[in-house]
């Protein structure tokens, strides 16, 4: 199977360990990724903070490129990107006038539809049974807190994925890998997202609470499917510890890390050794 792929800036930048992980894990499951040619940034928080039209045009350009490349389905492993793409798609479908206008702005046709998938949806597409059958090393040492954050499920009218108040799709994947998961309370609370640099205090506070809650419910790691969540919980973990004078030392995995591990891939192959919190 081959599907279209929109990496987004983070996966080609400081979260390239996520891309390594996604590619390796999906390759092991027989899924190839074909990157959209000459994709551009989705605009992220900056675009919708500054200009509404731009916040539709940038993702729309990428949707148009995907259609041009003939992708019916598109994996966007970053939930920010996938939410922006879905939101643009939703606005364009709802308003033909807007569609015409934006098509002119982005200089490409917008009539073909592309289904945008997150990483979990790709695993569901492969089939959880399939994944279970491929498991070589069951993860019985893992007790994970599955952390969904915001944009995997919110706003529900746009995302139409899982139950936004009590999501459980990541747990379902982990169950097939032989990992344990904990019931905890910060699954869908925000980590501070892209404000890491601009408003560090907020990010540290929110991320600290998430790590505290995961640990207090007995998790030995946190699983994410978002590059920003990973930055805030992993890269900034030392800053969190300094700010709140605590020692967390909790590993933050991407969901694909755990699937890859169970399939028998090495830490290096998955880029796990490039995490900030890493005990080899």
């Amino acid at each position, binding site marked *: 199977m081959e599907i279209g792929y929109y990496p987004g800036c983070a996966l080609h930048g400081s979260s390239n360990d996520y891309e390594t992980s996604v590619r390796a894990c999906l390759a092991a499951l027989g899924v190839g990724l074909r990157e959209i040619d000459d994709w551009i940034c989705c605009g992220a928080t900056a675009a919708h903070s500054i200009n509404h039209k731009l916040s539709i045009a940038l993702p729309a350009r990428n949707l148009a490129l995907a259609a041009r490349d003939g992708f019916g389905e598109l994996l966007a492993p970053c939930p920010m990107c996938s939410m922006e793409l879905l939101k643009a798609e939703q606005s364009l479908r709802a308003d033909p006038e807007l569609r015409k206008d934006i098509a002119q702005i982005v200089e490409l046709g917008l009539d073909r539809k592309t289904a945008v998938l997150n990483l979990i949806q790709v695993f569901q597409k492969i089939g959880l049974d399939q994944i279970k059958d491929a498991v070589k090393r069951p993860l019985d040492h893992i007790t994970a807190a599955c952390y969904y954050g915001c944009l995997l499920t919110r706003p529900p009218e746009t995302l139409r994925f899982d139950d936004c108040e009590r999501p459980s799709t990541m747990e379902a994947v982990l169950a097939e890998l032989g990992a344990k998961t904990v019931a905890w309370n910060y699954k869908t609370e*925000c980590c501070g997202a892209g404000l890491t640099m601009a408003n560090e205090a907020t990010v540290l506070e929110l991320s600290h609470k998430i790590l505290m809650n995961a640990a207090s419910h007995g998790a030995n790691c946190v699983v994410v499917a978002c590059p920003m969540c990973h930055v805030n919980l992993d890269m900034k973990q030392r800053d969190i510890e300094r700010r709140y004078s605590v020692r967390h030392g909790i590993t933050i995995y991407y969901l694909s890390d755990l699937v890859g591990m169970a399939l028998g891939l090495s830490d290096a192959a998955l880029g796990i050794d490039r995490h900030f919190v890493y005990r080899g």
Partner: protein
Amino acid sequence: MSLQLAEDRRDLIPPGLNLAGCYQCGKCTAGCPVASRMDRTPNQVVRLLQLGRMEKAISSGAFWECVSCQTCTTRCPKSVDCAGAMDFLRQLSVERAASAPSAHRTVLFQKTFLRNIRRNGRLDELELVRTFKTATFLKDLDIPFLFKDASLAPRMMRRGKLKLRAEQARDRGVLDRIFERCLEAKL
């Protein structure tokens, strides 16, 4: 505050936000992860918008504290797009160059971010850090902030997470044109 209605700019508000529906239950505030950091709570911000009091609304720093987590919009019993209202205010305050002083760093960051992708098509993180820090420093001369996170760079570099030369989109002409067509004012 005088009670005259001189300032009523409800006409500026996109109807899709459905702000007229708000009955001030405060569920947005209740679920907001950063409400306690805001000078006005989300429901108060929506209230000012309902009255069309844009000046007062954009003078608040609240919407720059907003982390766009969408919890307010998701749980609103009246389907008011509260997170969308925050976006709207950010856009308006940038357009009018009237953001609250407390928010200048966040505003600067978002602007720098956009300029960055306008130039490169994809985010050049190193350039973002460099330009953002410089611009902030020139504005507030905050030396600790300038060097904050400096220690992160070598650690990121060691992990291959920071590229000195970031990749760029090929067709950058179209990017410039997209920005040109969307933005009315200069960034």
